[in-house]
């Protein structure tokens, strides 16, 4: 067992337990905290997979911005809200069964597939550091998608402001 492998299992355990915690949380505020754990665990996983830039971006955007945003939203709405106890009605049973089955199918597929052996000699960063390489890719190969995404962000921003603005102020 190499170090990275042990680290991977630890991280995976953390991520999954946080996710399960999230599902079982009754109070919304607890859920928001546990999702932060999932995000940070994922970031660690990215770092482990040599994707430093993505990992950092994950911490900044998910663990930082999105979690806080969710907390704000909770505070602005019904922050005392409690999730009612889980009931085994038809819909939930079907959901559970479906998710389990899906999980099984995917896991079995993963197991059965002969994954290509990665060629460790290739440096995906092309000799640069990872952020530099990603920057080059974004501004060269993916320039147009990048611009489109920026446009999307603007639209989303404006849309979010418009939607969230209180109607009463108009009157």
């Amino acid at each position, binding site marked *: 067992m190499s*170090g990275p492998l042990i680290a*991977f299992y630890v991280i995976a355990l953390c991520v999954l337990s946080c996710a399960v915690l999230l599902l079982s949380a009754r109070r919304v505020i607890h859920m928001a905290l546990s999702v932060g754990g999932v995000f940070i665990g994922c970031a660690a996983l990215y770092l482990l997979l040599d994707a430093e830039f993505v990992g950092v971006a994950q911490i900044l955007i998910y663990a930082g911005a999105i979690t806080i945003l969710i907390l704000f939203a909770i505070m602005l709405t019904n922050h005392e809200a409690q999730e009612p106890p889980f009931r085994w009605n038809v819909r939930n049973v079907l959901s559970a069964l*479906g998710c389990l089955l899906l999980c099984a199918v995917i896991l079995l597929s993963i197991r059965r597939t002969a994954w290509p052996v990665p060629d460790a000699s290739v440096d995906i960063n092309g000799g640069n550091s990872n952020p530099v390489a*990603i920057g080059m890719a974004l501004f060269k190969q993916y320039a147009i998608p990048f611009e489109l995404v920026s446009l999307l962000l603007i639209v989303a921003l404006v849309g979010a402001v418009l939607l969230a603005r209180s109607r009463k102020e108009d009157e």
Partner: protein
Amino acid sequence: MANSGFPIPIGSVLALAAILFCIGLFGVLTKRNLIMVLVSMELMLNAANINLVAFSRIQSKPNLSGQVFSLFTITIAAAEIAVGLALLLAFFRLRQSSEVKDLDSHRW
């Protein structure tokens, strides 16, 4: 990087992503609170991101595309959560509720 060979079995990473995805899906389908649903959706997106990053590293000709795509996904997830939460606020203001079952204006 200096690592020779890849230390983590690809199957394990993908399995983690798959389990995370299914947990997220289960949350989306069963949680009553809209915020919980949105958050569960984030779990699913994260699972997809893990896959992307893993595939970026692990294929016969590794390249950066996976990581770039995961960046795009993160960006879009941010936009999505912003709009989603804005919708949530508007909905809450309208119905004084943040429960999914109250989103039923398309009922027969």
